[in-house]
């Protein structure tokens, strides 16, 4: 029998198995072009000037007072957002997971809604409420207080909107940790004489600390790199952040790519450092409190305080919902004068975005195309990578994990800038494909992580038994693993679809005439259309996203009930 004979199925040792090596090489090549190249291009542009390696420019950039200002603003905004998102997220998670707060089942899904919505639309809406003079909250409170208390065009305003929109991250992480925690740990504290509150503060929360910390660092990193909200709310109050400054360097004439690259690199290294810190802090601590699954911890009886809890949760939801309702009012007015006037009632704004304004129409279409095709490709790539990582013994898999997880540390604006620098002279530039590629790369970690956990949940023996039944690796994957993860993949698809629909930062760097996405169209529309038209477009985007959320809920609850059966 020949050693290399494929007919007998015997091949040279597995490490040298041809197709496996080709697969790994292809994956590395793909990641090199889509992940490494853009980031390397940014770093390269930062240190290499026309004359060669140069640090003079770096010194120049960092000695500019506006950079110092923007850096301080970025840090302050992100820190405040973490404090707000953290306290709201943890409180709500504890109330839902551990207390007997009424209406928990109603609150739980609602608390997640901001996670799916566009923070740019949120910023747009909050102007209606808290613009310094004409914001509704200010016009109501000014007669009482003698001054207008709120100014949305400030560091506080930006941080507030970000905090509201990122609270669900902390909520989700904390809730997961609380729900999987062994109740005996808390009961032991009660038996040792701790009160309910003491138990919550001294035992429950510290045990959830790794999860909370993770979420907080994620919020910090995301806030530091966010672009849309500071653009809408920061510029009027002269509050620049690093991201708006990067954009300015590129949008200004003459544009200064080197300065943008230097700032991008700094922002990137900063977020990488934070992520590294997070990993160092969490090493080996993640699952120590989980002792068994399906173990429902007992809830704490809050007595009459449970209504206070419900009030707090309702207040959070009001903060989320009311501005959108206000935006809805704005969208129904021919001109916004600070309050709703029946005489100004009109549907013309909707007519404008749906049938007249070409940018709006194109933005909607482009986003639908990018999000549909992009989410499908992203899901396919994530699945392939997850299968390679989880279900093969190919060499150098760890490197694939590192490279595909890298974009999680990269702020969207930096990634978008990287794609701009790397691809501007290729035919890809100026097409929807490039924007789509940037999206896929940026959210590859999300897709891959979720897909990996789906694949991990499928017992290896299921596909191994297919192999033993005569199926090749590919057949075992397509006929056993893929059908089993498919329902979960639909949810991941929807999550990515939603994320792509509202993406701002990378698109801002990459769009050209004709390739505006929905969020870009919104920002463009704000540039020339009356406020009501932007409002109408924002309302439409929100409705589209809410529709997807409803679908996600529907699917996941259907899946849960089918699993229970």
């Amino acid at each position, binding site marked *: *029998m020949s*050693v290399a004979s494929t007919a*007998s*199925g*015997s*091949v*040279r*040792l*597995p490490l040298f198995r041809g197709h496996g090596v080709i697969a790994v090489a292809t994956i590395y090549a793909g990641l090199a072009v889509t992940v490494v190249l853009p980031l390397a291009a940014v770093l390269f542009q930062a240190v290499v000037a026309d004359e060669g390696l140069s640090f003079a420019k770096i010194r120049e950039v960092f000695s500019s007072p506006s950079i110092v200002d923007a850096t301080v603003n970025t840090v302050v905004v992100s820190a405040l957002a973490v404090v707000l998102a953290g306290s709201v997220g943890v409180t709500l998670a504890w109330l839902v997971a551990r207390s007997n707060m009424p209406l928990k089942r109603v609150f739980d899904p609602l608390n997640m809604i901001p996670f799916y919505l566009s923070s740019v639309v949120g910023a747009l809406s909050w102007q209606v409420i808290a613009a310094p003079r004409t914001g509704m909250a200010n016009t109501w409170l000014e007669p009482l207080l003698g001054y207008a208390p709120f100014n949305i065009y400030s560091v506080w305003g930006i941080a507030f909107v970000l905090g509201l929109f990122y609270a669900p991250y902390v909520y989700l992480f904390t809730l997961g940790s609380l729900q999987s925690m062994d109740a005996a740990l808390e009961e032991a504290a009660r038996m040792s004489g701790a009160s309910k509150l003491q138990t919550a503060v001294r035992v429950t929360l510290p045990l959830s600390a790794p999860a909370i910390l993770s979420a907080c660092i994620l919020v910090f990193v995301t806030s530091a790199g966010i672009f849309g909200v500071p653009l809408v709310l920061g510029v009027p109050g002269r509050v620049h952040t690093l991201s708006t400054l990067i954009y300015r360097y590129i949008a200004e004439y003459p544009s200064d790519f080197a300065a943008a690259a230097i700032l991008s690199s700094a922002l990137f290294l900063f977020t990488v450092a934070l992520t590294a810190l997070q990993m160092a802090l969490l090493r080996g601590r993640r699952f120590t409190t989980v002792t068994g699954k399906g173990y429902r911890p007992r809830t704490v009886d809050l007595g009459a305080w449970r209504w206070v809890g419900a009030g707090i949760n309702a207040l959070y939801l009001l903060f989320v919902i009311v501005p959108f309702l206000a935006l809805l009012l704005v969208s129904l007015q021919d001109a916004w004068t600070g309050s709703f006037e029946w005489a100004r009632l009109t549907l013309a704004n909707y007519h404008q975005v749906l049938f007249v304004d070409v940018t709006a129409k194109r933005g909607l279409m482009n986003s639908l195309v990018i999000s549909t095709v992009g989410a499908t490709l992203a899901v396919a790539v994530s699945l392939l990578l997850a299968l390679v990582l989880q279900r093969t*013994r190919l060499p150098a898999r760890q490197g694939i994990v590192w490279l595909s997880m890298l974009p999680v540390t990269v702020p969207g604006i930096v990634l978008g800038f990287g794609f701009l620098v790397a691809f501007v002279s290729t035919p890809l530039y100026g097409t929807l494909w490039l924007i789509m590629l940037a999206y896929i790369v940026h959210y590859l970690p999300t897709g891959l992580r979720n897909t990996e956990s789906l694949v991990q949940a499928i*017992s290896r*023996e*299921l596909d*191994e*038994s*297919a*192999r*033993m*039944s*005569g*199926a*090749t*690796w590919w*057949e*075992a994957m397509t*006929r*056993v693993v893929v*059908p*089993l993860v498919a329902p979960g993949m639909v949810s991941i698809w929807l999550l990515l679809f939603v994320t792509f629909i509202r993406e701002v930062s990378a698109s801002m760097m990459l769009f050209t005439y004709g390739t505006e996405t929905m969020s870009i169209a919104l920002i463009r529309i704000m540039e020339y259309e009356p406020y009501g038209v932007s409002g109408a477009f924002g309302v439409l985007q929100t409705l589209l996203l809410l529709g997807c959320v409803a679908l996600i809920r529907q699917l996941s609850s259907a899946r849960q009930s089918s699993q229970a059966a």
Partner: protein
Amino acid sequence: MPVHVRGLAKTYGAVRAVQGVDFTVAPGTTVTLLGPSGCGKTTTLRCIAGLEVPTAGRITVGDRVVYDDAEGIFVEPERRNIGMVFQSYAIWPHMTVGGNVGFPLKISGRPKAEVEERTRAILQLVGLGDLHDRPAAALSGGQQQRVALARALVHEPQVVLFDEPLSNLDANLRERMRTELQLLQARLGFTAIFVTHDQQEALSLSDRIIVMNRGRLEQEGTPQDVFQNPATAFTARFLGYANVFAGEVADIADAGKVRIDLGDGVLLAARWRASEPARKGERGTIAFRADRVAVEPRGTVPPGDNVIAGDIEAAAFLGTFIDYTIHAGPLQIKAEGPVDKPFVRGDAVQIRISPAQCHAFRAADAA
């Protein structure tokens, strides 16, 4: 079809899961890999299946080499034509029972009619004739086990591997399945390799038993042989020898008979089990089973070889016998006595163990 395993080794990083295992399975027989958790049973089985790539060694199935590190041969699992029943059964929940069982035939491209016919036949054989169209997600543990079995057998592999196939069943069902498996094997004539850490299962199912310890082969033989003549203290302990004591070789008689000094003047005669002869004064271990210990009231037995005085420290009624813990000089001896002549705590007794039932090993063997 015979299976030969030569010098099999598998390491995971620094963990040496299997190190240099050799054995042969004769065609149509059942061999059981027996050993404590983590000793490398599953790893060995998966290497034979092709689900793990060994680090070294050579495996042949029939006259076909499926793995050889020196020649660089590795045959993918789907090409080895081996059936396997997994511990979790690995029933595919998105298919029907028929879909699960017919899968191996479908994947090898058999015509639809043949798939259907053979699937139904094998389901009949495992006693699930009427479940063909049932969704596989809705089956009881026993039914799942049968589906897994049918799926492993349907393409008539010459070798079938079982990784603890019965461990998830309750005691009654386990016993029934054991018998059924034996009947099936008699009918279909496949070679079976079984993994278990349940000695009862191993003893009742196998033609030969392979005891493994820390990735090595500890002992191989027929069930009777292994059970009655453990070759090492480890095997003895694993096969339920409740009394294992360390001592020193006091004197050596001919024909492998020794006396072990267990301290405080307690000496027990035993058969020397190590291959090399014993040397006087070396450390040794002695092992004997609790049910081979005769317990009598003090003074009723004349003193002699292997008669020791002791006191009942604890007595536990276990239905068919009474389990005693007896304090005898430096030793704490486990014994089983009949329920009709019970002793109670504090009773003075004498115990006697036939030297033929006492096995002595070189101390280094006692792991």
